[in-house]
């Protein structure tokens, strides 16, 4: 068919120029999940014809309540490819390219990003957002950023040197917990859940190489040195119990160790409980069912019919659903605890047979693992007089599940396309006219979708207040000293000052101090195609610092050693050294949320966000956070 019919609605409301620009534009969509499915549809129905979709994920059952391009028969298939196929069914003339790949792969280099008119993020994690942000700054392409969580969401436009970039605003790292809170003095359900998942589960079943989970802060200070040393002894004792794994007495031994012996040891530290409610140890013989007790004493156990079944209905039953939604009694938790310990012990021994260095890892969708964590957390909560949680809620907290629904994603994707309309008509709508849209939970009255002004660039942002330069070269021929020449040479960037070069937070060159690598080729220092270098130039005489991001593209058979594009030396912004120091000090937090970044700038990251920046995520499943 001709486009005249398909475009009728658009042509009625949009100018002929904009309709044509939309048809000619080339859009990179990063992510084909919750926001991505909606965005792909709305783009195609808005006259956009050329779309490239990148997503590394595969389709899961829990996606189907909102990712409408996917159906049951697509489970486990690549999101990017299925999204493309489904979209082509209602718009067969569209030119959609799909990549089942990580956007951070070297194939998606600066040249790739430069091939698009606008980049649109439909991502679910901070790391990838930060990366696409950097690539768009380097390629000088506008980025439409978006995120949703539950009923809330937001979308705004990022344009180099015109608006704040993704990393301009301080962010807070996922919550970490002091080890003593988790191991000795829990006061919230989440403390018990973290203990169950990150301590007890990984101690019993994790691979030997895996030390404690990074959410546990094991730094010692004056007050807790003795306690930490005792906790280390406690862990050693638990390891000894692992030798009994596979025997009938193993579950009872673990139970008595963690809910009785260890609790009694803590109780003996009277000072600890002067201002806290003391814990209550659990007694195995009082709580375990008769069947359980029998199992523990019988040699070569034979599973009794229906034993422990009342505690764990089969998956798929209505009973199972009710069982996951209710708070278990202590006896029920004990039953689930002992049963899951047996199941996991058998599985652990099996995987260790093939690889002695392996173990089990936490997976919220693995029922015995989740049963174990839920029961363990509840028993610990009971010991400490903390409210217990149903398995459904425990799973949400342990698995960092972000609630998600189709409506919020559809609304935010709609806003993203309205942002695109404005980006493509710069003569009519200046960047300041593209507002930061925030979707809030409706309360039946008042504003639901608000438009606020977009932020200006943060003048001390370590990411966007920098120069962005692309070097095309043969990485097997170009040497690190050629990079130094690019920075200092008057034919190139011509920057004055002391140069240090980092790659992924690793210092590989510094004037006068670290020059061992200068004669090595880029390849030899692992700077290959698609990699980038963070270069800090500290001009003491002028009292200014500059940051340059140098993106490396490998090219064979270049007529010259290298060619440069991007910012010229004079375009590279400066920060007064004094201001840079102050900003670093001001941003440096006391305890948590620290992340080392290039020239030592400390950067804060956010997951849940502050009041001003309410939501930045679709679904984050790889971090622990407070509900």
């Amino acid at each position, binding site marked *: 068919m001709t486009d*005249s*019919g*398909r475009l*009728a*609605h*658009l042509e*009625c*409301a*949009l100018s002929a120029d904009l309709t044509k620009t939309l048809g000619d534009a080339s859009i990179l969509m990063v992510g084909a999940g919750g926001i991505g499915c909606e965005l792909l*549809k*709305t783009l*195609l*129905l*808005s*006259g956009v014809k050329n779309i490239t979709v990148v997503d590394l994920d595969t389709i899961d*059952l*829990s996606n*189907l*309540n*909102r990712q*409408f391009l996917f*159906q*049951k028969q697509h489970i486990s298939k690549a999101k990017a490819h299925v999204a493309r196929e489904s979209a082509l*069914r*209602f*718009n*067969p003339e569209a030119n959609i390219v799909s990549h089942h790949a990580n956007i951070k792969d070297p194939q998606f280099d600066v040249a790739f990003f430069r091939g698009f008119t606008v980049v649109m993020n439909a991502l679910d994690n901070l790391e990838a957002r930060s990366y696409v942000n950097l690539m768009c700054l380097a390629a000088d392409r506008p980025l439409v950023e978006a995120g949703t969580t*539950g*009923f809330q969401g937001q979308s705004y436009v990022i344009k180099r040197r015109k608006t704040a970039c993704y990393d301009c605003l301080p962010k807070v790292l996922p919550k970490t917990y002091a080890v003593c809170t988790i191991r000795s003095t829990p006061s919230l359900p989440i403390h018990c859940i973290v203990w169950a998942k990150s301590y007890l589960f990984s101690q019993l079943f994790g691979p030997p190489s895996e030390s404690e989970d990074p959410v546990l802060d094991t730094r010692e200070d004056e007050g807790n040195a003795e306690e930490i040393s005792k906790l280390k002894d406690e862990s050693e004792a638990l390891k000894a119990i692992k030798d009994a794994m596979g025997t009938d007495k193993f579950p009872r031994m673990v139970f008595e160790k963690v809910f009785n012996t260890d609790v009694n040891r803590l109780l003996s530290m009277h000072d600890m409980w002067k201002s806290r409610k003391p814990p209550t140890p659990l007694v195995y013989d009082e709580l375990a069912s008769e069947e359980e007790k029998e199992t523990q004493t019988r040699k070569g156990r034979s599973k009794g019919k229906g034993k422990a079944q009342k505690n764990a209905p089969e998956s*798929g039953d*209505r009973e*199972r*659903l009710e069982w996951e939604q209710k708070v278990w009694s202590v006896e029920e938790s004990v039953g689930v605890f002992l049963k899951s310990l047996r199941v996991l012990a058998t599985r652990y021994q099996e995987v260790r047979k093939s690889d002695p260095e392996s173990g089990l890892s936490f997976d919220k969708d693995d029922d015995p693992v989740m049963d174990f964590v839920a029961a363990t957390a509840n028993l610990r909560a009971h010991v400490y007089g903390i409210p217990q949680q149903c398995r459904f809620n425990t799973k*949400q907290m342990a698995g960092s*599940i*972000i*609630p*998600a*629904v*189709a*409506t*919020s994603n*559809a*609304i935010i*994707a*709609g*806003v993203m396309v*309205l942002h695109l*309309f404005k980006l493509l008509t710069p003569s009519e709508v200046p960047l300041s006219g593209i507002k930061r*849209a925030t979707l809030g939970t*409706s*309360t*039946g*009255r*008042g*504003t*639901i*979708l608000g*438009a606020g002004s977009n932020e200006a660039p943060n003048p001390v942002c370590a990411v966007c207040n920098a120069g962005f330069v692309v070097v095309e070269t043969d990485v097997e021929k170009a040497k690190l000293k050629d990079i130094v020449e690019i920075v200092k040479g008057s034919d190139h960037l011509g920057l004055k000052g002391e140069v240090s070069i980092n790659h992924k937070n690793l210092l590989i060159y510094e004037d006068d101090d670290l020059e061992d690598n200068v004669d090595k080729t880029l390849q030899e220092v692992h700077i290959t195609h698609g990699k980038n270098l963070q270069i800090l130039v500290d001009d003491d005489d002028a009292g200014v610092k500059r940051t340059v991001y140098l993106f490396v593209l490998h090219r064979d058979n270049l007529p010259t050693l290298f060619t440069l594009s991007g910012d010229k030396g004079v375009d590279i912004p400066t920060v007064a050294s004094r201001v840079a120091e102050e900003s670093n000090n001001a941003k440096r937090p006391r305890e948590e949320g620290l992340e080392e970044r290039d020239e030592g700038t400390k950067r804060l990251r956010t997951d849940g966000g502050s009041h001003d920046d309410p939501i930045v995520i679709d*679904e984050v499943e790889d971090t622990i956070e407070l509900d």
Partner: protein
Amino acid sequence: MNLRSSSRKRVAKDVEASDTANASPYRGSRAKPSQAQSSKRAKNNTSSTDSKENGNGHTQINDDEAQLYDRQIRLWGLDAQTRMRNASVCIVNFGALSTEIIKNLVLAGIGALTVVDPENVAPKDLGAGFFFRQEDVGQNRAISARERILDLNPRVKVDAVTKPLSDLDDDFYTQFQFLVLTQADLDTMLRIDDICRAKKIKLFAAGIYGLTGYAFADLVEHVYTTANPAAKDDTSAPKDITRTIQYHSLAETLEKRWDNTTDKRARDTVRPKFYAVLALLTYQQRHNAPPSSSEADVDRLVAIKDELMKRANVNPSFVTLDLLRSLAATHSAELSPIAALAGGLLSQEILRAIGEKDPPMDNVLVIDGLEPQAGIAGY
């Protein structure tokens, strides 16, 4: 204002019962929706609720559904999901806006959906939504999309009705708990609202016109549960409480005067855009045709707007000439991003009403696609 159907001769067809879809592979797994009455449970004001009561007489959610709907049950809870499972919704006119609403409601897992549309697929419908294919052109819109709606969620029962609204008798509506009118004209909305009020059917009416959209809700009397604010300080207090909203009819809403309002924000910022839409609908009602972008038509539209706003005691300058000009020129455009915005916002309100958890919109939602922003102004 149903632009597509108002001036055309309609071909009446019989109700397309689900029998016509014997070929559907999903037929066996589809649930029977319960009777419409099941939602009308005993209501008492501000008493504590018992969660067990919520399942009474309803088809229960099973574990498989709980896995499928996991991410949203975490938002609105199992009781609300069970109510959705048992809800029967009718949506009228299959355009860009209803495409979005249908998608959102079916994905969320309502029990049964009936789509009423006498129109055939036109080429421009292919650019308004994703349910239609090239080969559907010339076929009835509701029927050609039916199987594809089922593909989104085979658990939902989907029916297509090809009669125009004017040929359906009042009893037709009693099989539904919720009725959603889209792109309807003012007289139709007033007539249907009267029927729905009399039969205690909850009505939503909505439309999109270029970059502007609106939605109206008349849920008659709506009972919902919400977190008990007292439970924050008093752990012995019930966690949830029950509340009731009495809604105003569309006729009452059109007569609303803002003489002594305490909600100046609603009067001065959100509601005025509703008068722009009302001016458009009133123009259509009086002239039996929508305005063109000619100066004469725009002048008439401005005069209607001034009249409506003065009658309501709202400053007419809150609606700009630019907005009316743009409405006159672009009202027939059903833009996908605006449909996504309006359809998403309205679907969330419909789902909140079905779930009977937290207050739904009361009672006019206005969508401004230019900013973009959206808000609800009360009666």
